[in-house]
């Protein structure tokens, strides 16, 4: 069950283009599993009543250490692209940040020691490193494929070598590893590894390519999606995407509580475009006619 706590910044370090933030956050690490995320309030503590940013920022848990310090630590890796993440990137040790976590449903681990391929794009590689360790702990041979636009946005390639049988790296500009996208090398990795399961985390375009490849290859696939979230714990309904349920019906499904990890073949990629998801016509409760413009909640 997630808790809401005032965490203390222990450290904040640059890693390429990203920031690596370590928080002392009581009660968050204990239940955290790979694929879980945290929701951070940005712009000040809620009790200050001053932040102009009312929605929380979601970050995959990179590492969680219940016994690391007196209060347990949680680490995230993030890109400071917008106002809230820039605020986070300017924190200093001993500053306080309000944290909720662990949130979401983590990756489901295989019952048997099967071979797995972990595919990470950009900071999406962060949660896969702990996953790799866990899988290895269960005797699963792990192959890792990590991609990014450029070398400075590759994360965890070295780390991954500790748990992985093999690590493949791609960058779009060729500044590290093979030139191209991680989905370009995936068929090869799948073939070489003979993997039965794929775990993927990264941008939606990448996840879609990976999920489609998994389907064609008949490989089980779990993807951790990234949707804009206001609350992160299930009350606002902003984070939905069309997902097919066990009853075969498509519903607009909350990524924050029913995800962020979904089976790749359950996500209705056909309805998801570069700017968001449409409501498929066959979705439960879909409007009879096209959705009318205008406000409304």
């Amino acid at each position, binding site marked *: 069950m997630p808790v809401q706590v005032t965490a203390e910044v222990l450290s904040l370090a640059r890693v390429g283009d990203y920031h690596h933030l370590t928080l002392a956050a009581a009660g968050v690490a204990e239940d955290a599993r790979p694929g879980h995320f945290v929701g951070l309030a940005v712009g000040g503590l809620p009790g200050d009543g001053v932040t102009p940013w009312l929605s929380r920022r979601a970050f995959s848990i990179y590492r969680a250490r219940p016994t690391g310090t007196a209060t347990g630590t949680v680490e995230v890796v993030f890109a400071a692209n917008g106002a809230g993440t820039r605020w986070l990137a300017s924190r200093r040790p001993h500053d306080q940040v309000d944290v909720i976590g662990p949130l979401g449903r983590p990756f489901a681990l295989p019952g048997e020691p099967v071979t797995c391929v972990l595919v990470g794009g950009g900071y999406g590689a962060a949660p896969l490193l702990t996953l790799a360790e866990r899988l290895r702990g269960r005797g699963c041979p792990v192959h890792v494929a990590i991609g990014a636009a450029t070398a400075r946005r590759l994360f965890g390639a070295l780390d991954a070598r500790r748990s992985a049988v093999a690590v493949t790296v791609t960058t779009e500009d060729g500044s590290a590893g093979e030139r191209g996208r991680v989905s370009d090398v995936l068929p090869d990795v799948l073939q070489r590894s003979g993997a039965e399961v794929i775990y993927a985390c990264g941008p939606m375009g990448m996840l879609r390519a990976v999920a489609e490849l998994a389907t064609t290859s008949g490989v089980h696939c779990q993807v951790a999606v990234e949707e804009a979230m206001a609350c992160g714990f299930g009350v606002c309904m902003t984070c939905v995407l069309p997902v097919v349920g066990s009853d075969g019906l498509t519903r607009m499904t909350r990524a924050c509580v029913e995800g962020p990890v979904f089976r790749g073949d359950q996500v209705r990629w056909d309805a998801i475009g570069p700017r968001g998801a449409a409501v498929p016509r066959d979705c439960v*409760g879909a409007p009879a006619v096209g959705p009318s413009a205008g406000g409304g*909640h």
Partner: protein
Amino acid sequence: MTTLHPGDVDLRCSVAGVELPNPLMTASGCAAAGRELHQFVDVSSLGAVVTKSVMEAPRSGRGTPRMAETPSGMLNSIGLQGPGIEGFLEHDLPWLRAVGARTVLSIAGVSVAEYAQLARRLRRVLGIVMVEVNISCPNVEDRGQVFACDPGAAAAVIGAVRAELRPEVRVLAKLSPDVTDVVAVARSVVAAGADGLTMINTMLGMAIDTDTMRPVLAGTTGGLSGPAIRPVAVRCVYQVRAALPQVPIVGVGGVRSGRDALELMLAGADAIQLGTVLFHDPNAPVRIADELRAELATRGVSKLADVVGHAHRLGVT
């Protein structure tokens, strides 16, 4: 004024004859049906849980993006996603009753008939202390004109709902600030049988993504909420309280602290709903109750009811 101990402050309040242990409710659509929030705060300790607006049939809601952050606020265009009334009565209400929450059911429709039908279904339902009627919905029978924007249409909905419900179930009409004359709408729905008013719903707003150069929201426009709109909520509550001093008001709009809650109560609200702040701080109902107690204690006020509408009492400077 002598300072009291916060523990000595009595936060009990009454809305349209319904007694509540404290004035803090969730705002519709900001706490789903209570379950997820219950992970952080015991929802039975809230004044009441107001549900996400429930419609007759299950609704998918709109496509995404459904939200855009704005300065001290946010836009949403969820599109009333929900399980429909059957689903609500089957899965959500029993849970709310089981945990002991006071439940205010928010209902929404696209025609007077849909609202009436929803109310009719509730006749034999127990465990709902009030019904809040979300009339900020487009009326399909009037070219999509929002009910709340027309005193006549608003009254037609409230009248129909009032007629169908058991008399002891209180009806709150939830008003939109997007009107030229909020007092006129208030008068109209009160005349039609509303036992109280909830003010305010979100304001119609819009954001454009300067990178894609297109509207951010899949629904083009959306509802603006959060601290940004608090001055408008205070104004609406104040105006309506001045015009209709006997009508109970539930204040909502941008509250994120005990002071904000107090501000709306001074303007005339008998109780308060917390909306957007819950996304930021699910613990807000507990925190704000504590802050409110402390604020009142410093002012030597032992009973919450004493501050309601206080800003009207002293006349103009």
